[in-house]
């Protein structure tokens, strides 16, 4: 539900147009960020494991769009889009990936393992699926304190095989928790195809076994994802209990930037590359009467400026001092520069 800030609500048509433009910008920002990260990895500016979410932007943007400040999100290892959607500063995110002092973990951990609780982003460990029980705990807090917030946990179809996922969904069902589980089914878990991961067609079908509803959704279709996410999130927020959304999508790049992904069929890749969520949404914007060429040019310029500023900020930022390796083991030993305490704010919903 959009926040009421006292000013008159905009007319529905104009509001919709503004929302569409904002969604388009966000999706292009995430894509450009992904592409820049891959390039920085090739240039050895980002070390270690880099897991690209290119091609999966629509689902990340679509699920996060209706979220409100104070909601809790636990992204998976390729969801840098969740960080950007929740309002984490792109410069700090880039610094995080480069291991710089100004990054979310102050150079302590790699890639997306640093979180930003102030923006409702929980930094997950590498242990796949382990963030689902955590999201249940966040939801439990919302329930106990009667807050109208929800927790969202993202996981891959591969991670769905972990026991933690079962334990989380079972508990969420029993407690009717305000939690949304989002399965990003991108067909491969590293080299392992979906068919070897599970013998059912939809992860969403499992929801029934836990006593709540599961939904399958075309994950590259931003409109479809946003529409479904709004409905499901509204219901969870209203006390309707947990939900599970499975987004069918595809991982364009290898499991990590080190992986040439020779185990999969080139035809399949081509098919999914042609289901690029961005042109699909542009087609819709065009139908809605936007001057798409102008909008694209304006959006690209805004995106490029943001990304370049983020890279410059991260580049300029120093590495931490070696001795800092011993800080932050316990809370309060060394505070991140400018980091707020546990106070939760975050982005306004795009709706």
């Amino acid at each position, binding site marked *: 539900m959009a926040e009421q800030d006292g000013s008159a609500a905009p007319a529905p048509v104009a509001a919709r147009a503004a929302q569409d433009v904002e969604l388009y910008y966000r999706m292009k920002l995430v894509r450009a960020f992904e592409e820049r990260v891959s390039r920085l990895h090739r240039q050895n500016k980002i*070390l270690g494991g880099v897991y690209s979410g290119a091609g999966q932007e629509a689902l990340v943007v679509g699920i996060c769009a209706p979220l409100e400040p104070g909601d809790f999100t636990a992204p998976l290892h390729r969801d840098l889009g969740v960080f950007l959607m929740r309002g984490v500063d792109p410069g700090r995110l880039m610094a995080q990936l480069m291991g710089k002092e100004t990054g979310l973990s102050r150079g302590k951990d790699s890639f997306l*393992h640093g979180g930003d609780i102030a923006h409702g982003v929980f930094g997950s460990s590498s242990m796949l699926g382990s963030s689902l029980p955590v999201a249940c705990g966040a939801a439990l807090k919302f329930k106990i304190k009667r807050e109208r917030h929800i927790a969202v946990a993202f996981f891959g179809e591969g991670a769905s095989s972990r026991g933690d996922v079962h334990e989380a969904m079972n508990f969420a069902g029993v407690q009717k928790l305000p939690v949304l589980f989002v399965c990003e089914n991108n067909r491969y878990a590293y080299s392992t195809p979906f068919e070897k991961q599970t013998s059912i067609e939809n992860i969403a079908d499992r929801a029934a076994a836990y006593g709540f509803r599961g939904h399958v959704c075309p994950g590259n279709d931003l409109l479809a994802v946003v529409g479904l996410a709004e409905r499901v999130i509204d219901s969870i927020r209203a006390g309707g209990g947990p939900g599970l959304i499975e987004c069918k999508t595809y991982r364009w790049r290898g499991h990590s930037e080190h992986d040439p992904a020779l185990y999969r069929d080139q035809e399949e890749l081509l098919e999914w590359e042609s289901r690029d969520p961005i042109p699909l949404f542009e087609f819709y914007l065009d139908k809605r009467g936007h001057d798409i060429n102008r909008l694209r040019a304006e959006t690209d310029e805004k995106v490029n400026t943001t990304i370049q500023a983020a890279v410059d900020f991260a580049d300029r930022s120093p590495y931490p001092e070696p001795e800092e390796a*011993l800080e932050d083991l316990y809370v309060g030993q060394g505070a991140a520069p400018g980091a707020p305490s546990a106070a939760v704010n975050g982005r306004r919903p795009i709706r």
Partner: protein
Amino acid sequence: MVGALSGNLAMEATYLKAINQALHEEMARDENVFVMGEDVAELGGAFKVTEGLLTAFGEERVIDTPISESLIVGAGVGAAVLGMRPVVEMQFADFISCGFDQIVNTAATLSYRHGGKASCPMVVRAPSGAGVHGALFHSQNPEAWFTRVPGLKVVAPATAYDAKGLLKSAIRDDNPVIYFEHKRLYRSIKEDLPDGDFTVPLGKAEVRREGRDLSIITYGGTLHQSLDAARIVEKEDGLSVEVLDLRTLLPLDREAILATARRTGKVLVVHEDRLTGGIGGEIAAIVADEAFDYLDGPVRRLAALDTHVPFAPPLEEFVLPNTNKIVEAIRNLAAY
């Protein structure tokens, strides 16, 4: 070592290739041996350690599993109890935490609970170790979580020869063995390996370098740094340093530990696992207890600092042991 001139006998192999060969040879030798884990079949493993096994032995004996570490270990136990010899893989040693319960509670206690009448001939392979920008969750050395669990055996080879020979022994052993292979060694070390079958006994350490002034006791990734450091102080300081490679961490080779301590009178334990609770403390206690009269100085430990393995290069460097830090520790102890 077999010389290169002796015809077809010697074959150069990396540490990684040595493990791969051991798997091939043991699977050919015993049809009860099978391999199971995430991405081990089609992909040949995240590091290519199991490459070629699928083609050679088929998908019934080389099994890609879902992402389910508890299942991988637990199913290994079930098959092992009935006489199979599973070699299961954790994609990274860090993820062994997700199979922890099945290892320490199901597998380790099995024989004890069955009056010594149930065996669990299972090997859990776990690529461990830091120094590859892996950060918190791809750098761990979790051996000390297991070295205090009776019923398990724990090995950590540091050479290609041992990697092959210890894996063969582990597969043939009737008890659960956790086999830590150091990622940094995979492609960075190479040796001539003898052709044909050979094993390295579990529970036996090996003196890698003889010396008079001081002993380094180490294993895994830090063996090579220790040997480098020993060469440096020999040249620059005229110090004669003995280096003992533990090879097996459970059971410890107490004889070898005490022998080297008595020989040189000064002991420096080096490991990449962190200091507190690492196996170095146990070794220091053994030496203090049983070789006290021979000591000319305190038992010293050099290990990763008591923190997580961080990501930013200057932090990682600060936390982990390396050759320079070992050289300094040798000099300090020698001067005591």
